[in-house]
């Protein structure tokens, strides 16, 4: 069959490949033979680069001249939790410059954990005439001036989605920079900003009839929301701003108007925001609860009333103030629930145990379709995890955040059996975070059963290196492994260095790996960048091989050590090639 296909004209192959959309499948297609590689690469439109330092923009452009949509990720995941120093890297500027110089017709750019500058946004906005979609997740380094450039220059902009970025807000009104001719917006999310120009926003919404997604920020009061919804009853995704009314008699009128307006918004399926919400205003949204499939942000006792109405909910993000009782309401109402995230209301300060294992078990027994879980609580029992594993065999993501080194409080046992039950029953598990107290045993189970595991996060693991070895040896599909505050050392690190080229990256911080161990990896594997981050101990770092490294981040790459590493990041390969040793040429 394969030889027959070689005689097809390229156009036929192209047509067939157009049906292959997932980037992994396309990668596989390109590996079949040189012919397929060449046919495929000219037709590829969407490229996903999970680590911006694994490849260079020039090579991207050379291989995929037809790329229209690019996803780039920068900093390691633990940067979200302040474990990566601020100026570690992840700059998008070289990418945008290179793409701008080429004849790439970029239309969509999605960046995660990258450093974006106003200049980058300006160049981006001017260089690609058909640019349509910009999604920035957990990025930083830019101001509203950059947003103004995007607004002003991207004539066909459809999507501007700012999720959880750190944006410096200037006194400009960047929304006003959208020209009157901009009528193509489909999705706008500025929830992470603090201010907004209301008048410009209302005008913008009024002239963009295709707007389906709108996520407002805290500066949009209820009255404005009502006027906006009047203009945009076709919305599917709504993120409210501040959902409060002052106790003024006129505002009851606003509330009535809001209710009436909401009754007209029959398409809303995803609801979020409620950055402040007065309980008495919430009944206004009851009408949309029936069809709601995603809800985030509403808190307190009102949430439970709302939840009772949301029979079709599929994704729910809430704070743990809902309590176990609230979770039981969720379990009895939301039978189609697939994703649940329960965040802690009070991150700092133990003793406020709002949800426990009871709530989780209730959810699992009421919502068997659950496949993605993020759950913060302070204690968990093996029995509960075993029950959850039995009730919900479909987990793709299971992230449990417990107090470190806390055992099962009932039996005082480590949580090995509980987590083991999860990996054993959820055969499609791709992402797992371990917490609490566990021993090597849990890694044995993970290595044995978690065949589809791609990402594993480990914190506060004691015991010997065998744990890490079980994982590296057993999880054939592992792509990202991140470990903090655990006692894994050189023995585990060096056992199978070839494994790291099959993975995207390995992060180890506050572990027992030494400088010598890291140097060995770097020497044996030239296609890995082994970075040592020594921000705090720079002065004290003895540069001796048996010194423990504070943070190590290694990743596969085709382009060697990066040129933009700050002085506290040492890429070991580079150092090894320097005559003079460590202290020179950092």
């Amino acid at each position, binding site marked *: 069959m394969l030889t027959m296909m070689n005689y097809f004209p390229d156009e036929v192959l192209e047509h067939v490949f157009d049906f292959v959309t997932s980037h992994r499948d396309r990668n596989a297609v390109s590996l079949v033979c040189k012919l397929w590689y060449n046919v495929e690469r000219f037709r590829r439109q969407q490229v996903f680069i999970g680590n911006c330092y694994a490849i260079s923009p020039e090579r991207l452009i050379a291989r995929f001249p037809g790329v229209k949509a690019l996803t780039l990720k920068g900093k390691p995941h633990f940067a*979200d939790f*302040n*474990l990566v120093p601020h100026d570690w890297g992840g700059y998008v500027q070289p990418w945008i410059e290179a793409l701008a110089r080429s004849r790439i017709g970029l239309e969509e750019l999605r960046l995660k954990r990258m450093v974006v500058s106003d200049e980058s946004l300006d160049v981006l906005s001017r260089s690609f005439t058909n640019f349509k979609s910009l999604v920035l997740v957990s990025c930083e380094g830019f101001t509203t001036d950059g947003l103004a450039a995007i607004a002003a220059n991207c004539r066909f902009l459809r999507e501007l989605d700012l999720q959880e970025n750190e944006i410096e807000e200037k006194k400009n009104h960047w929304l006003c920079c959208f020209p009157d001719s901009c009528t193509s917006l489909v999705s706008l999310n500025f929830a992470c900003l603090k201010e907004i120009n209301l008048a410009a926003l209302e005008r913008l919404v009024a002239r963009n009839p295709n707007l389906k997604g709108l996520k407002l920020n805290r500066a949009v009061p209820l009255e404005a929301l009502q006027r906006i919804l009047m203009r945009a009853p076709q919305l599917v995704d709504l993120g409210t701003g501040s959902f409060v009314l002052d106790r003024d008699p006129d505002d009851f009128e606003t509330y*009535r108007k809001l209710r*009436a307006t909401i009754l007209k918004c029959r398409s809303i399926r995803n609801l979020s925001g409620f*950055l402040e919400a007065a*309980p*008495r205003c919430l*009944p206004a949204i*009851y*009408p949309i*609860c*029936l069809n709601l499939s995603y809800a985030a942000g509403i808190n*307190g*006792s009102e949430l439970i*009333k709302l939840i*009772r109405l949301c029979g079709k909910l599929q994704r729910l993000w809430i*704070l743990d*103030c809902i309590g176990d009782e609230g979770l039981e309401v969720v379990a009895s109402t939301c039978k189609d629930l697939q994703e649940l995230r329960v965040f802690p*209301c009070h*991150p*700092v*300060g*133990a*003793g406020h145990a709002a949800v426990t*294992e*009871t709530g989780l*078990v*209730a959810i699992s027994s009421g919502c068997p379709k659950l496949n993605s879980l993020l759950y913060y609580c302070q204690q968990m*029992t*093996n*029995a*509960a995890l*075993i029950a959850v594993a039995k009730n919900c065999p479909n987990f793709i993501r299971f992230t449990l*955040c417990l*107090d*470190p*080194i806390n*055992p099962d409080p009932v*039996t*005082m046992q*480590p949580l*090995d059996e509980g987590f083991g*039950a999860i990996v054993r029953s959820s055969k499609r598990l791709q992402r797992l975070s371990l917490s609490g*107290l566990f*021993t090597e045993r849990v890694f044995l189970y993970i*290595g*044995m*059963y978690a065949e589809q595991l791609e990402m594993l996060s480990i914190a506060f693991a*004691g*015991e*010997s290196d*065998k744990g890490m070895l079980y994982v590296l*040896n*057993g999880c054939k599909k592992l792509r990202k492994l991140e470990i903090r*505050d655990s*006692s894994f*050392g050189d023995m585990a690190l060096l056992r199978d260095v070839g494994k790291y080229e099959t993975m995207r990256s390995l992060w180890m911080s*506050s572990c027992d790996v030494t400088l010598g161990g890291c140097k060995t990896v770097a020497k044996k594997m030239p296609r890995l960048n082994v970075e040592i981050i020594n921000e*705090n101990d720079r002065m004290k770092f003895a540069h001796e091989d048996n010194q423990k490294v504070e943070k190590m981040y290694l990743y596969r790459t085709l382009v060697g050590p990066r040129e933009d590493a700050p002085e506290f990041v040492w890429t070991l390969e580079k150092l090894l090639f320097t005559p003079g040793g460590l202290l020179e040429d950092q």
Partner: protein
Amino acid sequence: MSVPLEHDYIGLSSEAVPSMEGSERSSSGGLNLNLKATELRLGLPGSESPGRDNGVGVLKSLLVVSGAKRGFSDAIDGGSGKWVFSGNGGSEAELGKGGNLFSPRSVNGGGKGGGCECNNQNTGLGSPVLKDGVVPPPSPKPLQEKKPQLSAPAAKAQVVGWPPIRSFRKNSMATHSPKNDDDAEGKSGSGCLYVKVSMDGAPYLRKVDLKTYGSYMELSSALEKMFSCFTIGQCSSHGVPSRDGLNESRLMDLLSGSEYVLTYEDKDGDWMLVGDVPWEMFTESCKRLRIMKSSEAIGLAPRAMEKCKNRN
């Protein structure tokens, strides 16, 4: 409610082998392949792996201590969003209950560190048992006696980057108003729910027990009877109120042909139109009822009023 669950799974004895172990024993045939695939070869291929090295275990346990300590010293330096490391004696109740999870007994040279005892019991973690395809039960002894002391500062220590929440989310939750959490969790536990019913223009009020009705239909017929001397109009006979109670036809039913609308005051002091929410929710939040003149209720349900006018 979950306690029965825990009993079921913990089983008859406190040291029962968890379900996973049992099922593994029964299906050891297919398991051999898996285990082979993950069998660690700590020596040259084909050689037996050495037995458990207890010394290494002790060393590693000590290193756990130092590793954790390093985490604390990092934390002192600053950074936002610290987590209280309650495992270090912050939670006295746990310590008391567990006996000596973090007992002051220190790890001496000859003793076994935390992981070791477990490991000794579970020789299965070495290759010989893996070959047999049977994973032995975990150590029946509580781990607490064997765990090395975590030498934490006396006060609760805080760890950088724990709990793992994005700073962005932490900041937005910090400004989250705590008053929502302190909402009165008004549960109506009483057996009857008398609320006052007033009607505009009527000289006196009535009281009804909401618990005696099961639906809006019943309530409205009862009110109709009560206030029949004053024109209240009739409820439409079609359309039994459904559980969701949120479609407009229900509102129509209550209001059709009437120059009055039925409203209620809820726990928050707001005047709401009767009929929006499911019946149970209504009874929980209703404090009083008011039969309002429709002219006063303009804005409360504009479309409803239009239809009423059309009908009249």
